[in-house]
């Protein structure tokens, strides 16, 4: 139920993101979700790929600082109030969200939102209990 996210440290300089995408692409790995958190002088790229262990391997070989973090991917209805429903549940049951972003998976009626929560085991328990649907792999 946990999804492996790869985080990569990036300096805020031209071409670094291109380098990451090239490394991933050359290894035949597909991006399933992507987001960047940035500050004045550095950024953290967070990605979900179809083959996370291989993704880590090629990034490390290319001398990137990268690590795997467990996150939750929740399938939502692609309609008004879809996200609100999850937020209400998380809020009620004390699931603290560190960050979230949207994935590239967008099927007819649903989308997948990636959540990094403070306590992932607690988060998953709440997901299960409240009947939300979490994705297990991409």
């Amino acid at each position, binding site marked *: 139920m946990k999804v492996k996210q790869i985080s990569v440290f990036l300096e805020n300089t031209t071409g670094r993101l291109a380098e990451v995408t090239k490394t991933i692409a050359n290894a035949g790995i597909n991006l399933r979700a992507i987001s960047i958190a940035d500050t004045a002088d*550095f950024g953290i790229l967070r990605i979900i790929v179809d083959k996370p262990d291989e993704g880590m391997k090629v990034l490390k070989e290319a*001398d990137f*600082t990268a690590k795997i973090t467990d996150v939750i991917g929740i399938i939502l209805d692609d309609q008004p109030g879809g996200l609100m429903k999850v937020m209400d549940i998380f809020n009620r049951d004390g699931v603290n969200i560190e960050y979230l972003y949207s994935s590239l998976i967008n099927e007819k009626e649903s989308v997948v939102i990636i959540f*990094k929560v403070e306590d992932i085991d607690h988060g998953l328990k709440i997901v299960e209990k409240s009947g939300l649907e979490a994705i297990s792999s991409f």
Partner: protein
Amino acid sequence: MIYNKEIEQMNVTQMQEIQLKRLKDLVKRVYEKVPFYKKKFDESGVKPEDIKTLADISKLPFTTKNEMRETFPYGLLSSPLDDIVEIHTSSGTTGTPVVAGYTENDRTLWSEVMARCLAMAGADKTDTIQNAYGYGLFTGGLGVHHGAGPLGAAVIPISSGNTQKQLQYMQDFKSTVLTCTPSYSLFMAEVASESGLDFRNFDLKAGIFGAEPWSDNMRVEIEKKLNLKAYDIYGLTEIIGPGVSCECQEQNGLHINEDFFYPEIIDAETGEVLPEGEKGELVFTTLSREGTPLIRYRTRDITWLFRDKCSCGRTTIKMHRLLGRNDDMLIIKGVNVFPSQIENILMKIENTEPHYQIIIDRESTQLDNVELQVEVEENFFSDETKDLEIVKNRIHDEMKQQLGISLNIKLVEPKTIERSMGKAKRVIDKRDLKAGEK
């Protein structure tokens, strides 16, 4: 004005007689009273009575900064602790600092040499000295302060910082002499210019600048911007603080107060004494110090000695402005920093040997701008920006606390710091400290 004509215009033979007498007394005293020196002399097989001429000084062993640390705090005292009236430590060292203890006589000596230096820069009792060196354990502030006393000049003990107030007081009190680090003087000039102030309307005539290396180009800039004559002063905590040597009106070499501080230039590799005019490491013996006397102390500063017929009338030996150092010590914002200290601090924070690089620049702001680049390693990398910001702030705060200076911390990707010969180049010093050297 020459503060002490008798000494400063003494002929060489007479000066050497004084030096020899003082050297003999010193060697005897430290041999009897400081176990550290007795042991060292015994190990080198030299006895106080072996010193018959000044040249015999080369028989004595050198003293190093490390030994001063090892004997912390009072291992080098040659006077009873009761007779110590002032204590200073060297700036910016982690762990064990270097201690200088002063007896009443030492303090009088310090006042005397500083008064001579102030006079070399043209100061006398009619002057108002704005002393913007830091007051505290750092010897700069109190050194100048002590010297102003016997000279009879008024001293404004404003210490460093608070630049707007500096500029205000400079006008209110009509300061005629400014004492601070050269980079701070240029910073003052910048603030003054931003505030629409013109130094041509000030009363400053001389600036006595030291505690960090600076170039002749920087002198030209300071003299132009602050509308004063800029003099280089040299000193180090171990020997006395400021007052070891200073430039006179000729601004060509620094007259050494050689009746108290006996200079030698040595080959840093072999330890062999080099003749006048040859470049090497500067070594001092404190001929009259009672608190913490030093025998052949290796300053690690590179320069050469010369005696010329100086137009100021002084006959004392001169040293050329510093040409560099023969260790990796950096002087940043007037604070002594060794790269190893930065490494130790980083290791404590990250629990691992970090890759880092220090980039020092003095172009835009005139103040030393230091960027510490630290490669982000897996052991402290996080998927959350706030965690990395915490690491960054912690590095900044620890450096500030332990080194006493504020560094700009930049987290960089691994392998961005250039490795040469398998070893990283730790320091990139972009300050052009020798620019315009004659």
